[in-house]
């Protein structure tokens, strides 16, 4: 498969996208600050985000951006969602967008029955339900490495296993859990998605707070009963749903991460302009200028490939999976570099918890790692392209 070089949708922001960008930027600046983020962390807030703010965003229509109007959505695309996510990323504003919209929401949309969609998507678009995807079991991203088993029982299934790094898993109304109904860990086939309600007996939920102060949990499932109506999509066929879902989520997360790295870079530039040593602003030192120029170029490339991926996914182009991996790889690597350079250029002050730049680096590392890092997506990019 080769990659078409000419995207059909323009890579410039449309007028509407520009308006959405300004609205999201203003909302995030007005309604959130890093002080709030530190409070979540230091007070060990179990959620790490605000349900009230989430409902406000729902009222603005943002949670429903990629869902059809019939389910309460706006019927727009990932391109528009990416615009919002980028701005939230700039402010490090935590939301359940990744878990509830990009992962489980789109999994329901792509794989759910009509009844499931009717039951869940409108509530989701209204900001009333948070649904977390419980799929990962080991440190490095490997979506089909699933050992959790769903054994057939009289009433349907019994699920046993351990799910880790369930993002937004604390305070979620439902968990969408991936379990093996056939085959062995590592195999793409034989996986099935189950919709489990919070509070279902047999589920142990251990909070596992992350470096970016986001909420994640470890779920231990012990003979958890699930009826056939709780299955989302085909039995044994979850990978067919999850693969496009992961593509969309990777591209959406890339957009958020782009916001994170852009703001980190802009703050570093601002610091370079004002911090003085040896009687001059340190931004006048050529060695730092050249490194900043290199970062600038990388950011430009990251913007282009992320926009192209989101648009290709919206247009369901055949090169969308390759572009999604290209975007996640490019943005992850750029974010990592920006994170390292930012701390170094801030110097000692950047090492203190008091200064915000460290929060950006931590969020960047978490998002880089989530859903596959640069190395993982380069490998996939090569495979898709047949080498």
């Amino acid at each position: 498969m080769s990659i078409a070089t000419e995207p059909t949708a323009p890579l410039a922001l449309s007028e509407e996208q520009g308006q959405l960008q300004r609205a999201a930027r203003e909302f995030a600046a007005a309604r959130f600050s890093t002080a709030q983020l530190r409070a979540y962390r230091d007070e060990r807030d179990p959620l790490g985000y605000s349900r009230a703010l989430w409902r406000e965003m729902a009222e603005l229509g943002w949670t429903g951006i990629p869902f059809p109007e019939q389910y309460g959505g706006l019927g727009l695309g990932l391109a528009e969602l990416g615009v919002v996510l980028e701005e939230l990323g700039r402010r490090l504003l935590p939301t359940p967008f990744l878990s509830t919209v990009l992962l489980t929401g789109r999994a329901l949309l792509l794989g759910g029955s009509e009844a499931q969609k009717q039951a869940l998507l409108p509530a989701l678009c209204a900001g009333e339900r948070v649904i977390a995807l419980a799929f990962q079991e080991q440190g490095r991203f490997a979506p089909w490495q699933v050992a959790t088993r769903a054994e057939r029982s009289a009433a349907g299934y019994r699920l046993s296993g351990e799910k880790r790094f369930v993002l937004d898993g604390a305070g979620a109304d439902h968990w969408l859990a991936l379990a093996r109904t056939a085959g062995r860990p590592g195999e793409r086939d034989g996986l099935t998605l189950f919709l489990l309600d919070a509070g279902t007996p047999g589920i142990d939920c251990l909070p596992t707070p992350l470096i970016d102060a986001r909420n994640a949990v470890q779920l231990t499932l012990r003979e958890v009963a699930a009826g056939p109506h709780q299955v989302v999509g085909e039995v044994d066929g979850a990978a067919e749903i999850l693969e496009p879902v992961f593509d969309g989520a990777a591209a959406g997360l890339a957009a958020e991460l782009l916001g994170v790295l852009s703001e980190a870079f802009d703050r570093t530039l601002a610091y370079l302009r004002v911090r003085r040593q040896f009687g001059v602003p340190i931004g006048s030192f050529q060695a730092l200028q050249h490194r900043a120029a290199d970062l600038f170029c990388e950011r430009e490339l990251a913007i282009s490939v992320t926009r192209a991926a989101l648009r290709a996914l919206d247009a369901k182009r055949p090169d969308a999976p390759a572009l999604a991996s290209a975007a996640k790889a490019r943005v992850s690597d750029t974010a990592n570099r920006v994170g390292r350079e930012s701390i170094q250029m801030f110097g000692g002050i950047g090492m203190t918890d008091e200064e915000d730049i460290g929060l950006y680096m931590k969020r960047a590392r978490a998002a880089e790692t989530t859903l596959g890092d640069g190395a993982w997506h380069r490998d996939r990019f090569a495979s898709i392209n047949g080498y």
Partner: protein
Amino acid sequence: MNPDELEAFRAEVAQWLAEHCPAILREPRADPGALAAAEQGWHRQRAARGWLAPTWPVEYGGAGLDPEQARVLAQELRRAGARPPPISAGLSLLGPVLLARGNEAQKRRHLPGIARDEMRWCQGYSEPGSGSDLASLSTRAVLDGEYYVVDGQKIWTSHADQADWMFCLVRTDPDAPKHEGISFLLIDMKTAGISVAPIRLISGPSAFCQTFFDGVRVPRENLVGQPGDGWAIARELLQHERRALGSIGRGDLGRARTLPELARQQLGAQDGPIADPVLRDQVAQCELDSLALRLTMARAADEAAAGQGGEHVASMLKLWGSELTNRRHELMMTLLGADGLGWEGPGFDATDLRTTRQWLRAKGNSIEGGTNEIQRNLIAKRFLELPQ
């Protein structure tokens, strides 16, 4: 133009291309001799329709297309796999500048020949003592009646030995501050007093020359703009050069073989993944970065069309594109191993020999058109607003 008209135009282009663009140009591997002949014929056909300079007015040899049509034409050309014309100093560098800055007589005289790619131009910018610090140039042009008398020397004048004309930066006011005493002059290469010496590069013979001026008399009417306008014109023109140099990093133009093909050939595994996973990762990185660069060029065009364009684009493309080109060539050499160490002769594959020479030649991409260090300075100061 409304969408229907634009689609009709697209169909017309596609039809014409199917008829006129030879299939041999779209094949990855073709006999070099047959290829050269086909390319020449194809470019002549394009030139005849004004499609080498599609947006130029018809009276100057262009096709008079609006930007949307030009975008459609570019898309269709790429879709058809048609080779772009060789980078020409006249078409890609001087033409746009002359359109913007030349007087009517100069446009009528020079543009049609450029649009048909019949008149060959070379660029007289750098001098042995003036590389990165281009504005320190010292080639003099002294007014003597209706003539400028030019003395000095230029270096890196590509194809000067075959060119019909040179566009040249000369110092017309030695007393003015260094950026203000420079003028932009068009010089007929047949004028008495010009001599040319080709430069041998680390990659072997090259198109580059040194050009020497000894009392060369150039009619005053060949001055573009006003005396002292030279630096402003030069900077405009350099933007075009930088975009052209950056576009080499696209990685999908006129290559004999792709990077994955080369990796397979050297490392094995015709169908599955490239057999060496570490080098495969580097291949993927290069390919992915080339894709990102192409998308950035497309975005720049889209943003320019939407009035969101930034001036930084040329420097950014030049810097990143040429770094990527060098990375790609280093990787090709690594993949080739000893197959890439050949200099000449029948003991090496001709394509491998070409790859090796290109690896050496590509080192120049990060130097010419303003070194990458100069681009970083520009980006930092002009676009990132870092202090002087």
